[in-house]
């Protein structure tokens, strides 16, 4: 039916993602003109690789936000997962499967702890995650002394390189571990949120927790799933980061929460719950990457990067809140 297709395009046009797309395209065009380095395969490939860490975490955070909660302890979770997994791998030997299994297991367990504190003890999720961030991080550094691990298993350090193809005679591109993990995470999250009933229950719970309870949703189970998922994503992201950096640095990840929150929030997810899409998060991530990359390419010192990120977050959430106000006052009148 052509009419409903028109209606859905109309809906898209009014959505957050549409405006985001416009801004991104405009930025790309602008940057492409200002700096010839920007729109090169090399640059885009590098961007994708270096932002995989933030992207995978952003997907985990997206699910938590949709459910109506918040979590900023994921960097600590990732640090713990990274350290333990690779220590074990170094000490006892491992392969790709076991290494991811361990990281996912640790991440999931730490996430479960968050869920228990939020649901069973009824503490606001922001306070829980501020606390667990410090608990996980504090204990990690206490027990490890903050030592870096520089030697990783050879197969891990080499990583993977699939679908290799030659772009030019000097360089070849392919799917490396980072890009693969990012793509898989996007796919799995998208499937969860859009193709499974559990994902829809998460949206519902975030939209109206009381109604969800009345309808018989398993609220504790859903919350457990959501925070564990965040933990799992943290585990995956931690390995991706370790492989990229070719080392494990337990003190380096904590402090990067802002980039992740920025990506998700720019992508349109709301702290109130029930709102947010995988596509939006992808766009938010892209915007963040382009912004930070643009700053560097334009010759501005990277010291200024956090400032611009903060500015963009504030503008974005203000604009969203403003347009929501407009829509609310418009729909209040029949």
């Amino acid at each position, binding site marked *: 039916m052509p009419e409903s297709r028109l209606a859905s395009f109309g809906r898209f046009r009014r959505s957050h993602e549409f405006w985001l797309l416009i801004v991104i395209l405009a930025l790309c065009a602008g940057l492409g003109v200002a700096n010839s380095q920007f729109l090169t395969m090399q640059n885009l490939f590098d961007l994708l690789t270096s932002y995989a860490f933030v992207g995978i975490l952003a997907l985990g955070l997206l699910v938590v936000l949709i459910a109506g909660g*918040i979590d900023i302890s994921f960097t600590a979770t990732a640090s713990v997962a990274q350290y333990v997994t690779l220590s074990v791998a170094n000490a006892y030997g491992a392969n790709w499967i076991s290494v991811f299994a361990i990281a996912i297991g640790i991440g999931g367990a730490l996430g479960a702890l968050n869920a228990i*504190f939020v649901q069973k*003890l*009824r*503490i*606001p999720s*922001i*306070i*829980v995650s*501020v*606390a*667990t*961030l*410090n*608990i*996980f*991080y*504090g*204990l*990690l*550094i*206490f027990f490890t002394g*903050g030592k870096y691990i520089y030697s990783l298993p050879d197969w891990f350090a080499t990583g993977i390189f699939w679908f290799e193809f030659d772009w030019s005679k000097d360089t070849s591109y392919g799917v490396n571990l980072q890009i693969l993990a990012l793509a898989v995470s996007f796919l799995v999250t998208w499937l969860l949120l859009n193709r499974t009933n559990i994902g829809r229950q998460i949206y519902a719970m975030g939209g109206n927790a009381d109604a969800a309870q009345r309808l018989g949703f398993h609220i504790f189970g859903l919350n457990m799933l959501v925070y564990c998922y965040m933990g799992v994503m943290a585990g995956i992201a931690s390995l991706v980061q370790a492989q990229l950096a070719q080392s494990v640095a337990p003190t380096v990840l904590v402090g990067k929460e*802002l980039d992740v*929150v*920025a990506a998700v*929030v720019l992508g349109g997810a709301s*702290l*109130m719950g029930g709102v947010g899409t995988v596509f939006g998060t992808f766009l938010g991530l892209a915007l963040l990457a382009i912004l930070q990359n643009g700053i560097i390419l334009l010759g501005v*010192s990277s*010291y*200024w*990067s*956090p*400032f*611009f*990120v*903060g*500015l963009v*977050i*504030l503008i974005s*959430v*203000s604009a*969203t*809140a*403003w347009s*929501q*106000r407009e829509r609310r006052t418009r729909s209040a009148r029949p």
Partner: protein
Amino acid sequence: MRDAPALSLRRRIVHLAGSGTIATLVLLLIALWVVFAIAIGDRFFSVNTLQSMAFQMPELGILSLAMMLALLSGGLNLSIIATANLSGLTIAFLLARYIPGSEGVAWVGVQVLAIAAGFAVAALVGLVNGFVIAYLGVSPILTTLGTMTLCKGLAIGLTRGNVISGFPEPIVFIGNGTVFGVPFALIVLALCALPVALMLNATPFGAKVYMIGSNEKATRYSGVDTRAVLLKLYVLSSLLAGVAAVVMLARFNSANAAYGESYLLVTILAAVLGGVDPFGGFGKVGGLLLALIILQVISSAFNLLNLSQFLTLAIWGGILIAVAAVPHLGGKAPR
């Protein structure tokens, strides 16, 4: 439904502990003192220990006051540390620029103006926070996360992570000097805590803050300009961060973009331990101060026991969970 039925003894204890009344906190403080005295012995009771506690507490105390104000209104101010650092850097920059070579009135004038400039920066951040939260309706967590990044980003961008140090004596006195044996910084804390307590307990503004924290819409329907109140509140919160900046910069004799980041957790902990309801509407300055003393005692004891600062962080996190959970373990969740 008449008045609530008489509470059983167990309920009463949990209720007291959860609401953090002064009595409970005093008891806790005494208990801790005894435990640590036994465990650590003479070193704990030395004048040195007491004095060092008294020096460390003020900046944390002022920052906790800033956090408490936001919590009371049902929000959160994650930007207080970053605001303090930016404010401190402003003061440090002006001092470093204009002090060398000045004398007499100019010398005093520069210091006063530098501090005033620091306050102005803090107030500006508060205005941004207040405006976006109150008039645009953005969630306080998100807003202050944004301003926190903005402030930190500005600070890093301008200083490239460098430290500015070396300040004139009067400034250093603020953080390190004593008046009749009492650290001046402690006096500054008192000068902040008393007016804030008075404001919360005995002014129309304070009463409105509590009511907004419990139910903003009903407060608005009662004729209160809730947006103006929230704006002023966040400006006040950031101004307090500015005062903390002066104390911090004086005590360390330097300013930096990343000082005190671990303080954020502790300010929330102090507030919640002190009886501030994380959902808003309840909490007293007296409770906050007692909670701070308790935390300071624990912290000093940890220091004397040579506990790693990271273990300390983890323990703070654990205590925060425990303290925030208590009201709900009693059975009734005060949603």
